[in-house]
């Protein structure tokens, strides 16, 4: 039974939701609050899984309420359901809301979205992870990308090409851009083919807000260096995995989905670097010392690895399930459901191939590429093609950098 709290200052809205969502009553326990303070009181006395709040309310508005919830009950999934289309108000809610729905919103769509969110939470929202991800407000961005973005959006006529280039170069910015571009705030929900489409949909105005005003992105400058984590290496690797995954492909897989999944496959590491830098560094240190893959150590420390953490974040932010699942299982494609496995396998392989040029001849611990997975993507015959592809991609990437 999921407990969901709806908050709106308009009683008719709460009544309408109560009635429209009544068919869910055997799976959801619904609570209703007419103001922010009342919602916080109810949360304090009985925890819940999700809060769906209006934006404009007298006294405490939706953004302020969700900010308090983020602080006091970080594990609660936070959704805005608002009829207010003012951009500034929307930007205030971006750091603290996981998803946005615009009134009028078909109750069927809302039901579906809530179901999707709760199922993501069920699969990946292992409690400490839920708190970790839930307390995240701003995604870390590589300092030089951040500077460049600030410079570009400050231009009176930013060039789309350049913006796309900067956004693509950074995993944090890309993730945020994809989240917002997929959000219902910008109209009908639809699949965003690539980063360019996401940037074009948001427009330079929103990007300017994202970068300059709202607490949605921040330059990654940790007080003490995190052992084994370099933000620039991280960006380079993510980019390489995206490029390789897109080309490794596989039957029935969409290249652009693979590219995005590849680019975002390690976004969980950004969450860890931001929310738990010490433990994350510790895990890297142990992994290196013991010659084990880091995700194994993370699983021991956090219960899950950066893969699930990233998947949980992407799921909460409403990215398409194909990407979420591929990211979640990129170390263990065998755990993915049958229809999601090829994409996870492609990521797995791309991740493996991307490390070849970095450390030629050294395989990562116990992780020799699984014959089963290799078979899934075309068999050992493809091996030489793949390695060449990986080396080319790495060379190209290095040239670009």
């Amino acid at each position, binding site marked *: 039974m999921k407990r969901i709290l709806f908050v709106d200052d308009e009683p*008719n809205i709460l009544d309408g939701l109560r*009635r*429209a969502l*009544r068919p869910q009553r055997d799976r959801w326990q619904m609570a209703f609050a007419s103001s922010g303070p009342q919602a916080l009181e109810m949360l304090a006395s009985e925890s819940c899984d999700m809060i769906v709040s209006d934006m404009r*309310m*007298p006294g405490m508005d939706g953004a302020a309420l969700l900010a308090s919830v983020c602080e006091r009950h970080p594990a609660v999934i936070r959704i805005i359901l608002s*009829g207010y289309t003012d951009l500034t108000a929307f930007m205030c809610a971006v750091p603290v809301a996981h998803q946005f729905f615009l*009134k009028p919103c078909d109750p069927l769509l809302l039901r579906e979205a809530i179901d999707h969110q709760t199922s993501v939470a069920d699969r990946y929202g292992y409690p400490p992870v839920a708190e970790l991800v839930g307390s995240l407000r701003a995604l870390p961005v590589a300092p030089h990308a951040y500077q460049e973005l600030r410079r570009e959006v400050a231009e009176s006529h930013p060039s789309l090409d350049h913006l796309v280039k900067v956004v693509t170069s950074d995993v944090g910015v890309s993730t945020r851009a994809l989240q917002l571009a997929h959000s219902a705030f910008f109209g009908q929900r639809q699949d965003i083919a690539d980063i360019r489409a996401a940037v074009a949909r948001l427009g330079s105005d929103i990007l300017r807000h994202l970068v300059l005003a709202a607490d949605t992105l921040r330059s990654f400058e940790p007080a003490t260096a995190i052992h084994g984590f370099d933000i620039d290496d991280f960006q380079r690797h993510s980019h390489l995995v995206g490029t390789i995954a897109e080309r490794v492909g596989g039957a029935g897989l969409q290249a652009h989905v693979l590219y995005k999944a590849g680019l975002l496959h390690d976004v969980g590491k950004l969450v860890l670097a931001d929310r738990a830098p010490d433990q994350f560094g510790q895990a890297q240190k142990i992994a290196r010392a013991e010659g084990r893959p880091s995700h194994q150590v993370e699983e021991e420390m956090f219960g899950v690895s950066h893969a699930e953490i990233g998947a949980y974040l992407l799921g909460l932010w409403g990215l398409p399930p194909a990407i979420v699942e591929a990211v979640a299982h990129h170390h263990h494609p065998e755990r993915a459901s049958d229809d999601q496995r090829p994409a996870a396998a492609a990521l797995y392989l791309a991740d493996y191939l991307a490390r070849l040029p970095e450390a030629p001849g050294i395989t990562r611990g116990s992780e020799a590429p699984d014959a089963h997975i290799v078979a899934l993507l075309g068999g050992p015959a493809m091996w030489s093609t793949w390695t060449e592809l990986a080396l080319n991609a790495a060379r190209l990437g290095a040239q670009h950098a």
Partner: protein
Amino acid sequence: MGAGIAGMHYTGMAAMRLSADCRFDPMLVTVSVVLAIVISLVALSLAFRVREESGRRLWRQKAVSAVVMGVAIPIMHYTGMAAAHYTASDATVDLSHAVKASSLGVAAVTLVTLVVLALAIVTSVFDRRLTAQRSELRSAEERYRELFLRSPAGMIRVTEDGRILDCNLAMARMFGFDTREELMATPMAERYFDGGERDALIARLAEQPTTADLERRLRRKDGSPVWLLTTIRVVEGRNGEPRVFDGMMIDISDKKRYQIGLLHAQKLEAVGELAAGIAHEINTPIQFVSDNTRFLQESFAAVSQMIAASDEVRAQAEHGPVDPVVLDRAASVQLNADWAYLQSEVPKALDQMLDGLGRVAKIVRAMKEFSHVDQSTDMAAADINRAIENTLVVARNEYKYVAVAEAQLASDLPPVMCHIGDLNQVFLNLVINAAHAIEDVVAGTDQLGRIEVRTKRDGDWVEIDVSDTGTGIPEAVRNKVFDPFFTTKGVGRGSGQGLTLARAIVVEKHDGQISFDTEVGKGSTFRVRLPVRGRGPAAALAA
């Protein structure tokens, strides 16, 4: 001149006292006189022609005429002398009437000669100056006429009864005519859209003989309007002639169009700012109407099942005892359908849906009336109370989170001649300002301020007060509130043009008044006063 010379010569001859007998040859006398006249004529005509000339040529020609004149005298003299024949006689010279040319006499003759010479010079100088003045006068008149005719500003002289006495080409062109004559052939009354306007102008001129910078909307030949910036002066007729009006006009139609466009842009901007709030006000009811509709749709499916089950029971009951299985099924269908819940909720859902639809309709109607674009530039009678109500509906989202708004509208408020679309703008600005002032007080608290809008009649005026319980206006900025671009609001809350625009609309367009009363910490009241009959005649001209 010739006769003078001849007369002088022969008189001089007659005055001589000689002991000789003097005879004249009549032929030569006649010739000498004719010569004197002819050469004088040539000399004088040369001299007069020379007067028109100037520069170096003048002196050469003058010299020529002087020579000619100089020649006339000796020629005449010697011809005359040739005509005289003396025969010696011993007749005693009669000296009884002779004078002796004493030295005194010589002096007197010299003096007189000099005086005559001086007089001649003075006369010639005066004559010269007079001629110069006359030609100057003529050329000045031509110059001013030229200035009048060719001036890019329109100039016109009109009689009180509306005949156009004179005008220039620019004036004719402004009114859409090709020539001055065409315009002058039409009466001035044809240039007005409303004849009363001209009467009002004449009445105004009776009090104030010069009126400058009037902005008037007049009528072109093809009936289209032209905006003219006009200065008019009354010229009182001399010697009992009727007085006339001299006008100078500049075409400001382009500027006017720009101004109107600016006003329109401001209005669009305000509507744009309201759009997010209005969307919210509409989206909220649509959300719960659609939630409830979905609920009713699913409820109806459940009720249909219930009725199908109960039909089955009834069908069986008509033919004997009902199968307990069927009865059980009917009971479970009813339980699944959640009938008790539907029974209590469906009527409420329907009520709320109707309420929601009513709210949407109300907002849409208020929106439509609020964004009314004044169809013509003429004023029309409008209900100010209704305008206030509409304003409060469309702006509701802008204040409802910080204040409650209350309208105390006088039931005896007369319709006011006005541009209601523009006044809506004024009321909106005042209400939004009130909301912002209150927001600064209540932000971060759960208190609500209060906005009161009152209307009342005061004789020929209608008064609209907008009061708030906001911050009040600090002493230091009180005299700046109507200044363009003056704002104390943060970025994104106002461009500082709201009150400037409000004043322009109330004072300049409606001949009304706008003022405020404020106390720091307690709030402000803005008061708009509008004449019920619209603008007075003076203002009618100004707009």
